[in-house]
């Protein structure tokens, strides 16, 4: 008994100190919450897993870096593009275009410009004025009248909050604010006003994230309710599910998908409640050479889209 007591007394203080340490971790420091992610990236994990950029036809992208900061890109696309039509039939018209682009990427300044052979010009600017304030702008000019648009965003990053103000052409104004409430939970709100359509709206969002999962929900007065959940099953695999409901038009969509990030490839697959399944594979053939396969099958509309492409650089 006497022999048993000393190991007991030495064991107990070690355990007590361990529990005291975990208790200190558990007791959150509400003054030192992490900075939340930007409002537009609230459902980023779900979007990345469930909505890959599927395409139909051939896609070839070549990026050549001339400098550490400056690079040029050439891109060719050939394939049918859908035209929105009133009838239930989807109308596809074969198109082909070449896109030339220039990128300048600096830690504080990012400039991206693209010119397409069908007459469109895109520009994106991201400028970090100070550590906390950054300005983003993007613009698209087209040949068709009244289809060009531009938008400017001013972002301010605080200690545990972010706020954003945006102005677009057509008298579009928006503001959003996201705040970290606990180390895992952040809440956000947004307000927008579209002058051209005389519409205004209000929205709320919440995001709960841990190491293994991210759950996000968003409600807007335009009638959109979007919930998403992403679970990181292992470091290579994550599963995602998404639910979107529009209470004005009574439109419901639910989707479930997986995202496998292996060493040589990244494979994303998804199935929808609209009877649509998509798969997107990016395979690394060589250093800097990626082979892309995209498939989208819509059983209800009998619309099948398959694409392949190559990305160099």
């Amino acid at each position, binding site marked *: 008994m006497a022999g048993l007591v000393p190991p007991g007394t030495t064991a107990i203080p070690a355990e007590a100190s361990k529990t005291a340490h975990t208790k200190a971790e558990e007791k959150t420091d509400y003054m030192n919450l992490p900075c939340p992610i930007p409002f537009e990236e609230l459902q980023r994990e779900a979007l990345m897993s469930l909505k890959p950029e599927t395409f139909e036809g051939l896609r070839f992208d070549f990026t050549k870096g001339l400098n550490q900061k400056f690079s040029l890109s050439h891109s060719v696309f050939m394939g049918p593009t859908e035209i929105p039509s009133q009838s239930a039939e989807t109308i596809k018209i074969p198109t082909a275009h070449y896109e030339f682009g220039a990128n300048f990427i600096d830690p504080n300044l990012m400039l991206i410009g693209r010119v397409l052979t069908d007459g469109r010009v895109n520009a994106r600017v991201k400028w970090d004025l100070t550590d906390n304030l950054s300005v983003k702008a993007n613009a698209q000019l087209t040949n068709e009248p009244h289809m060009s648009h531009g938008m400017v965003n001013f972002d301010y990053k605080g200690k545990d909050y972010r706020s954003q103000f945006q102005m677009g052409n057509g008298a579009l104004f928006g503001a959003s604010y996201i705040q970290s409430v606990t180390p895992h939970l952040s809440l956000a709100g947004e307000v927008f006003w579209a002058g051209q359509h005389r519409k205004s709206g209000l929205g709320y969002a919440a995001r709960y994230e841990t190491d293994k999962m991210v759950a996000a929900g968003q409600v807007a007065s335009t009638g959109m309710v979007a919930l998403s959940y992403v679970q990181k099953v292992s470091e290579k695999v994550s599963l995602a599910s998404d639910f979107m409901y529009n209470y004005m038009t009574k439109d419901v969509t639910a989707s479930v998908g997986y995202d*496998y990030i292996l060493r040589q490839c990244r494979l994303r697959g998804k199935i929808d409640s609209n009877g649509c399944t998509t798969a997107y594979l990016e395979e690394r053939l060589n250093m800097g050479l990626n082979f892309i396969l995209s498939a989208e099958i819509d059983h209800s509309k009998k619309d099948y889209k398959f694409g392949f492409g190559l990305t160099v650089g």
Partner: protein
Amino acid sequence: MAAQPKRGGVHLPARRSASNSDPSILTKITSSAIVSRGKQAACDAAFVSKKLLRSTGKAAWIAGTTFLILFVPLIIEMDREQQFNELEIQQASLLGAPPTGPPHK
């Protein structure tokens, strides 16, 4: 009416000429209630089984193409990853082991 060769199963109803005032035993059988109900049941069974076959075919097609798009690339990629891992282990054992061998001895 000539004696019709008896054929098993469903057959087209015999064309009836002017109503026979003197029905033979065969016409009595073929126009009885049981036989007509049996014919109706057989028609229904054929209709239902055709519908079932068509919907099973449709379901099989949808399931097959969905499996092909969603899971076949996954299986292929996982297999390649496993092969790559095995190759790496083999390489590691070929190149990694020898330097540590002699010191132990």
